[in-house]
């Protein structure tokens, strides 16, 4: 056994709040979020980069918490699914759309998918398209839904976010999908 390495104090913003936490150098951001800070929304799936269940945003970019050394979050802004609704009155339009479209079945992939999808809709100055959603979610596996309802929900949420009057223009209806979708 190698000798224990000293913990170091990590200063990080998590969901907008400054947090200081003593972390072990060999722990990942995911381990710190889940087992030290009780933020269990981010899921530990494969724990090696294959599934995207642990997706969080670091300085606004979706990344994998299972492959991020906790120490690498020093001074950065981390957003987890728990912080998604902040500024959206408790429910983010994506969460609302996932509910309406039944886009979560077991729900294990959902937090990661929401974090990838949020970055896409935030960076796209107009409603997103089907190929854009597929490309943005290409690192998030879902074993239940078959993806269709997830893609529909993201397109619908983004359309609603770009509609001033939410009751207008077919909100909540099935988005039209290109006949031959890529991938």
């Amino acid at each position, binding site marked *: 056994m190698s000798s224990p390495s*000293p913990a170091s104090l990590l200063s990080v913003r998590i969901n907008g709040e400054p947090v200081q936490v003593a972390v072990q*150098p060999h722990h990942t951001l995911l381990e710190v979020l889940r087992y030290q800070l009780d933020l269990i929304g981010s899921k530990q799936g494969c724990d090696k980069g294959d599934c995207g269940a642990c997706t969080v945003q670091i300085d606004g970019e979706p990344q994998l918490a299972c*492959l991020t050394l906790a*120490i690498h979050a020093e001074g950065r802004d981390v957003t987890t699914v728990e912080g998604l609704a902040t500024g959206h009155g408790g429910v983010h339009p994506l969460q609302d759309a996932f509910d309406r479209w039944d886009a979560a079945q077991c729900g294990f992939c959902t937090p990661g998918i929401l974090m990838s999808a949020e970055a896409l809709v935030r960076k796209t100055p107009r409603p997103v398209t089907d190929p854009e959603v597929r490309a943005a979610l290409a690192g998030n596996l879902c074993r239940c839904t078959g993806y269709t309802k997830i893609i529909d929900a993201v397109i619908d949420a983004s359309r609603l976010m770009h509609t001033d009057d939410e009751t207008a223009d077919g909100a909540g209806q099935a988005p039209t999908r290109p006949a031959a979708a890529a991938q």
Partner: protein
Amino acid sequence: MLRMPRFSVQTPATIEEAVTALQSPGARVVAGGTDLLPNLKHRLEQPPVLVSLSRVEGMRAVAIDEATKMLRIGARVTLTGVSEDPLVREHFGSLAQAAGLVASPLIRNMATLGGNINLDTRCRYVNQTAFWREAIGGGCIKSEGNVCHVVPGGRNCVAAMSSDCVPVLIGLGAHVVLVGPNGRRELPIEDYYVADGTRHTTRDDGELSTEILVPLPTGPRRCHYSKWTVRGSIDFPLISVALRFELERDRIDAPITAAHVVAGVLGARPRRVTRLDDILGKALSDQGVASAVAERVHKQCKPLENVPYEAPYRRQMLRVHTRRAIEALVAAG
């Protein structure tokens, strides 16, 4: 849950400090961590200290060096950065293409080009949990054992170089810059790799790759990178081929003046395909050129049973992907 072994982490602020930290015995560089962390979780190594590049200044720029006519890409530029960079896209479309095909968007947001060129070699018998390896009788030469499961009786590890960017960079004649305790050295990236899966680069442990230099095109060319994977995302390549054709004029029916074809995912070193002389002077759009190149690739490249899918199937697909890649170039004009 895959726990990592204990280690300490140093976070130097400059390249010099990083090189100094790297001189400590067993120290390892960590950049994006998307290759190193899974390998640590699989207990393939237990370094006492990681030297993190997260705070190091520099190594993040992409810029043209007018004096040498090279595009300089810092080792810490992410693969998302490489694939979206306007200069890379303008001059080296196939590099942007390769970087954009690595793993998934989430991993490309973390992964660096320096990590991609130093990516460890891969094998179906080694990229597994320690428990799995124990179940096949205690690993292999590259892990805790002393046999090879790919080449029975073999004494040399033939784990596959699986980087998407490397075959392209070799084809483009790129150079890699290394900084160590004795200063800076630069070498053609083609000479950076050696045919030993347990130690596949000529980098000293105490050296850092700081940048990649790619010579700017001097005339019209057509380049393409083709990667075959099980799924459309996340997966490492099963085979890959990087193509570069220099042309006499900027037309697809112009005579080819030089051809560079490099195949990946064979052994520990990418393979440059030779004897392409008979297509010089012909055009990419000429009848038979695509299949002539595809036949050369098929003849010279022999995949091994080191990654998923059977080697003979992968060899056939090398031919298919080469031919299709050239046909795609022709169709694009």
